[in-house]
């Protein structure tokens, strides 16, 4: 397995872990919040809200803007 494959595998593991956590959040009585609940908690104040939207904005710039 090349270093390229290992790197891609790492990203895949992170994505799968996110999906697993999201699925665990759907169980009754779970102590794992869903991603949306997490976002709403983080974004309830201006710093969190502006921070999350700025992170999203940066992604767009990163992929498309000079």
């Amino acid at each position, binding site marked *: 397995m090349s270093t390229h494959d290992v790197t891609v595998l790492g990203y895949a593991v992170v994505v799968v872990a996110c999906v697993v956590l999201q699925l665990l959040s759907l169980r009754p009585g779970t102590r794992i*919040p869903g991603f949306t609940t997490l976002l709403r908690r983080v974004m*309830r104040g201006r710093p969190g809200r*502006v921070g999350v939207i700025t992170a999203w904005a*940066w992604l*767009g*710039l990163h992929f*498309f803007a*000079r």
Partner: protein
Amino acid sequence: MTESRSTAAVVRATMATVVHEPVVAIMLVAAFFDGISGNPIHALLLGGVAIVLGRDIALGEPNPPIPLVERGMWIPGGWTVAAFSAAFALVVGAFPRYSWPATVGVVAAAAAAIAVAWRGPLVVHADPGPLPRRGVVAWSTVLVAGALWELEALLLQPSLTLDSQQHPTISTLTDPVLSTHAGRTLIMLAWLLVGWFLMRQ
């Protein structure tokens, strides 16, 4: 805040905010690294928002959690946003990456979203309250691990501005898709719709 507050006091309070408010500190660090990576526009956006946000927090500016929809702001429906986003992505996606037209389009969309987020939440949501510690730790671990993995790939490149196929960052992996008009349109549409989803949280 009082108008008699001296500039020095505001600067001191802003510096204290930068130290104690993680969002501001994270954006400043990101701005620095984006700047030394040869991305002045990105650094300007991150650094500018961080400084204004830090000043805002330091001055204790009011931050009413009143949703914009309750303040009379017109909020477009989902289909309207989807249609506008598709048209935007189709037009802006026609330009090559990193071209000035693409840059202007993306910066305009990003600035508009930040300005709206600054004013307040779009819609009403019940406060979920404090989250279970175990869940927060689990999510934080995964998200930080993902960020560190990306950072590791970035640092293993020959330089910050030279891609590596041996240690590809997410950007390097998406390069083939983003080299076509269709790919750029789809990714830009996804970016816009994710932004809309985030703004409704």
